[in-house]
């Protein structure tokens, strides 16, 4: 007799803590706050994922990475559903994620708009280079003290 084991959604979320964001690998898809719901529909695991930016090319890679990670845990029937509403906001980044971003050299988002300080030398003497950066979620800034350029995670 085949017994189907359906792990608890809390367990699945814990596993997803190990699935990194493909473009910023120091934070996980859970840290990013894009996994909105994990639930079983019969024998199919349904995961609701919200895009960070509507054209973010990482979105399809993230879906693939989640499926792969769950397959390794023995879950084959996964349905990843795109959920637009409520729209993703950087408020959903966990505090842990913000600390990890800063340690990685990316200034975390702030509602005040703009980084608190340079993620390298902590100087407050920073200037914006461009509103856009290496990925849709980032802008380019530069530190006037240590002269290093750095990414700022845009606040939306």
């Amino acid at each position: 007799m085949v017994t189907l084991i359906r792990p608890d959604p809390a367990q699945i979320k814990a596993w997803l803590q190990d699935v990194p964001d493909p473009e910023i690998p120091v934070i996980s898809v859970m840290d990013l706050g894009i996994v909105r719901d994990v639930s079983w529909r019969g024998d199919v695991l349904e995961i609701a994922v919200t895009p960070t930016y509507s054209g973010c090319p990482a979105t399809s890679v993230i879906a693939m990475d989640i499926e792969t990670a769950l397959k390794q845990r023995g879950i084959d029937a996964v349905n990843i559903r795109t959920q637009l509403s409520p729209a993703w906001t950087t408020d959903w980044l966990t505090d842990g994620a913000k600390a990890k971003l800063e340690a990685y050299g990316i200034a975390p988002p702030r509602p005040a708009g703009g980084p608190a300080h340079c993620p390298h030398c902590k100087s407050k003497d920073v200037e914006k280079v461009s509103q856009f950066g290496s990925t849709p979620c980032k802008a380019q800034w530069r530190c006037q003290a240590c002269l290093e350029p750095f990414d700022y995670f845009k606040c939306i």
Partner: protein
Amino acid sequence: MDPLFEFLLRQGDNTLVLGHRISEWCGKAPVLEEDIALANTALDLIGQTQMWLGYAAEVEGAGRTADDLAFLRDAWDFRNLLLLERPNGDFGHTMMRQFLFDAYQIQNLKALEASSDPRIAEIAVKSGKEATYHLDRSRDTVIALGDGTSESNARMQSALDALWPYAGEMFLADEIDQAMAADHIAPLPLEYRAPWEAAVLPALAAAALKVPQDDFAHQGGKTGRRHSEHLGHMLATMQVLQRSYPGATW
């Protein structure tokens, strides 16, 4: 003809055509930061297109997908504003077109957040966040270039003079718009005109630019009745792969 389908094509074709146009700058913008900014803006617009045309395809119910609508329709089936199919011109011209549209689009999306159609409302909320960011940048760039050197000011003035006759189409309404307004799906576009002017005119003044006095407006893009020849050339490039290798995927 289902007016909701037509309305969604207008939304999706606007973001698709502008998104493709600005992607043409990729790799050759004046400076690296602007190149990246234009590519990112294009990415947002193409992402928004997937939401609009994806929904349009569902509403149509003919088994087509967002990709089919983007890559397998001909120019006369496109419903974008004429403004957006204009060739890029120089960098200032591209940013002026972007600014005139962004200032309109923000009003459009804000209104659609309250749409009686929940799917439209959620697409508008998602897109609105990105559009706000686009407008910040296009407004600042227009002001910086207009209020820059005599050379940059002259180029921005000629961009404004060339594009102004294409702005009026944004506010025109036809039977599709009437149907959307009747169903509380979207207000009549004329309602966007006053807030658009309230955003655009002070910025153009700050950019030391003279607003053309002629109110003549080219039309025929959003109805599909009379696109310019530029759209056909653009589609020839954009659609070449699907036309040459139908059904190709990777």
